[in-house]
């Protein structure tokens, strides 16, 4: 009884010990905050990867693909039908993306994925990653307009009205500009227009062709103002519009005339006449372009960071890839950008280009001319319950003969990345736990001090018949009490911090003037957090354990004190 009473009194009267426990409190709070934010990030990241990759992916080893997806899907259903929610056949192939920006061709390596948007949306989170389904906000985060497409809408390959309007205007500009340029080609080189549409030198323009130039400028300026809300250097955009449109027109004309320099024999150009009818008509190939492929942050003269788009939905790009012929040949085709894919995972955003599956199959010659049978390379599978994934993978591996398909869960596919994240978290935890361990040494020192201070009282207790173990218990439970108080306060502090982390971030940003959490860098509108209850419990228990551990030595010393010497101690 005396142990508890004394322990409680010591807790209440020795404030120096509470000071030592503050380090435990801060350590615990830090661990909880860091773990919650890390877990928030990694959960979000996993969700994103998961959404892009689907639960289980059944990939053909052969880049040329595998014919008859219906038969394959029927086989999968037969083996693991009970667990399967949805399936989507896709064609995945490497390729290259080219577009013209500021008069220069830019070519980037891509992973080209032919999808059927309807079934793809069922196996993953496609809709969440397409910009037409998101609210539009300007660079300062101000609301501009609501999402163009509603969540329930199945993604398709059509341009939304706004982008269609932009495309029409571009075609019109191009036509006028071409006329102008053709008239004055001898004076103004096409590739380097001396025109500064933002602040045009009128005299020079007037010399060229007053009437037409004026009209062209009008259109150009209108286009620049209306279409590129997110685009920074307006002059550049306009210039780009000119050159880019010129290129597209070239492509389109080429396709029309059957002399498209990118065209290869064997690539069907059946849609070409349609293009010829309307310069603003869309290409048969439509793509969702990964945001990282054409968008970059740019710091303007005021030091404000803005996003610059090298391509906008409604523009055309050129895609190159290999066909499935024998031997494989390169194929090139123009494609219209209908939407932007942005998942927040830069690895995907700067790599993936989604394309209409049927068109990709045709360009890649994956359609059997005699039977009309189409080949696919991958089947993405969504399970009813992801915890069954291992089981399903085993079943599918057994069902498909080895060497033709690799069956993996998204986690297995992303193994190294996920492993890296968990190693990172583990190392961080070890380091942070060292903070608490350091706090443990503080407790040790202060406890020794308290034992020395209490030497006489220990002598009294022993004289009154207290056992050594009882005296030890006083100091151990004192350590336990301090640990519980410290860890408890730490848990409360940490959880409060996590709860209000975005307010704290806003405050820090306001006070320091530096944006602590730039959503453009992290692709998160606010700091994601995920509080794992078991993590909180472990951290708290660990801290209490350290406090008790640190009090063992002083407690032992107290219990070993000789009563007579302790009583004499002044």
């Amino acid at each position, binding site marked *: *009884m005396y142990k508890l009473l004394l322990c409680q009194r010591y807790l209440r009267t020795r404030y120096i010990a509470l000071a030592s426990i503050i380090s435990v409190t801060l350590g615990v709070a830090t661990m909880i905050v860091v773990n919650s934010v890390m877990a928030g990030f990694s959960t979000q990241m996993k969700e994103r990867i998961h959404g892009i990759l689907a639960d289980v992916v059944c990939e053909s080893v052969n880049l040329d693909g595998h014919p008859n997806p219906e038969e394959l899907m029927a086989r999968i259903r037969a083996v693991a039908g009970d667990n399967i929610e949805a399936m989507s056949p896709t064609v995945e192939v490497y390729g290259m993306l080219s577009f013209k920006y500021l008069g220069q061709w830019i070519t980037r390596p891509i992973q080209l994925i032919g999808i059927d948007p309807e079934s793809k949306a069922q196996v993953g989170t496609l809709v969440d990653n397409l910009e037409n389904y998101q609210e539009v906000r300007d660079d300062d985060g101000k609301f501009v307009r609501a999402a163009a497409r509603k969540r329930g809408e199945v993604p398709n390959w059509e341009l939304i009205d706004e982008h269609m309007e932009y495309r029409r205007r571009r075609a019109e500009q191009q036509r006028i500009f071409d006329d102008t340029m053709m008239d004055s080609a001898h004076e103004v080189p096409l590739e380097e227009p001396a025109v500064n549409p933002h602040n045009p030198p009128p005299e020079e323009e007037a010399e060229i062709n007053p009437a037409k130039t004026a009209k062209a400028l009008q259109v150009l300026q209108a286009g620049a103002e209306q279409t590129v809300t997110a685009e920074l250097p307006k002059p550049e955009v306009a210039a780009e519009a000119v050159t880019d449109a010129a290129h597209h027109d070239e492509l389109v004309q080429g396709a029309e005339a059957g002399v498209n320099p990118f065209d290869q024999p064997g690539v069907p150009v059946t849609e070409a006449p349609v293009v010829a009818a309307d310069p603003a008509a869309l290409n048969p190939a439509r793509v969702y372009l990964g945001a990282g492929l054409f968008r970059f942050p740019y710091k303007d003269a005021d030091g404000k960071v803005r996003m610059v788009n090298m391509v906008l939905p409604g523009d055309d790009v050129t895609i190159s890839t290999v066909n499935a012929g024998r031997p494989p040949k390169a194929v090139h085709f123009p494609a219209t950008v209908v939407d932007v894919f942005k998942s927040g995972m830069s690895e995907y955003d700067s790599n993936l280009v989604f394309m209409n599956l049927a068109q990709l199959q045709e360009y890649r010659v994956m359609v059997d001319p005699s039977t009309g049978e189409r080949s696919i390379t991958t089947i993405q599978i969504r399970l009813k319950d992801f915890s069954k994934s291992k089981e399903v993978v085993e079943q599918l591996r057994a069902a498909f003969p080895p060497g033709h398909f690799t069956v993996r869960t998204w986690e297995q596919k992303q193994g190294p990345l996920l492993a890296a994240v968990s190693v990172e978290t583990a190392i961080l935890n070890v380091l942070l736990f060292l903070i608490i361990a350091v706090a443990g040494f503080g407790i040790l020192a202060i406890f020794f001090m308290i034992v020395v201070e209490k030497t006489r*009282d220990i002598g009294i207790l022993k004289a009154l*018949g207290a*056992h050594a173990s009882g005296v030890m218990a006083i100091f151990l439970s004192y350590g336990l009490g301090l640990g519980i108080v410290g860890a408890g306060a730490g848990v409360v502090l940490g959880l409060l911090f996590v709860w209000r982390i975005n307010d704290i971030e806003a405050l820090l940003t306001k006070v320091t003037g530096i944006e602590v959490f730039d959503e453009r860098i992290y692709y998160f509108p606010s700091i994601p957090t995920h509080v794992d209850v078991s993590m909180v419990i472990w951290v708290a228990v660990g801290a209490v354990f350290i406090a008790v551990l640190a009090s063992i030595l002083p407690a032992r010393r107290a219990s070993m004190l000789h009563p*007579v010497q302790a009583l004499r101690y002044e």
Partner: protein
Amino acid sequence: MPTSPHVAAVAVEKSYRKGEHKIPVLRGVDIQVHRSEFVSIVGASGSGKSTLMHLLGLLDVPDVGEVTLGGQRIDDLPTRSRDELRNRVFGFIFQFYHLLPELNLLENVLSPLMIRYSTWQYWKHRREMQDKAKHLIERVGLSHRLTHKPRELSGGEMQRAAIARALISDPEILLADEPTGNLDARTGREILDVLKQLNEQNDLTIIMVTHDERIAQQADRVVRLDEGRLEAFRDLELAGPHSGESLRLGEKLRVG
């Protein structure tokens, strides 16, 4: 009338180490204290009187010799048993009171019982124990100070609280180490009166260590220590405690 001594030390020797030197404190001391006897041990500073008391009260163990309680050797008992005896059989009073500063008067008085019983047992019987403690506190005249902390009490009050604490476990033997040493003469006398009263009314065996001859003379018997040896029994022939002779002797000495 008990024939065997209540508590006794037989040829005990004790020395302390100070660095490399061994300082003998007790060099073979025999002492027998009978039941209900009030014995005072006197001697100059460093004569070993406190050490002897500590040995008798099991706060320390002799290097040589033995300590017996009711004829049984107790100094070689395991630590736990000795702790137990200290709690149940011996009551201690110290020169500097040695109350626990974090506890109030009532809690201080109750502390031996808190030590004796487990939390559960203590909680179950706390009412009776508190009543007993309050009764004892009343007896030493401190009822108005129940919830005061030791630092709020005067020296005399603290010593009376210490006496109440020593009595709460119904000890057989009260060991007082300079109980009046830190008090003024009048308060010291009051404390001594309390002890004498306890000795006479409760038949408590009291062993008191003091350097004050006048205080010592209040006891039934005075034992003098000099340089670790027993110098003299003033009343070697005493048949037992409370004999008229011993009292008379005491009177005589005081007068003389």
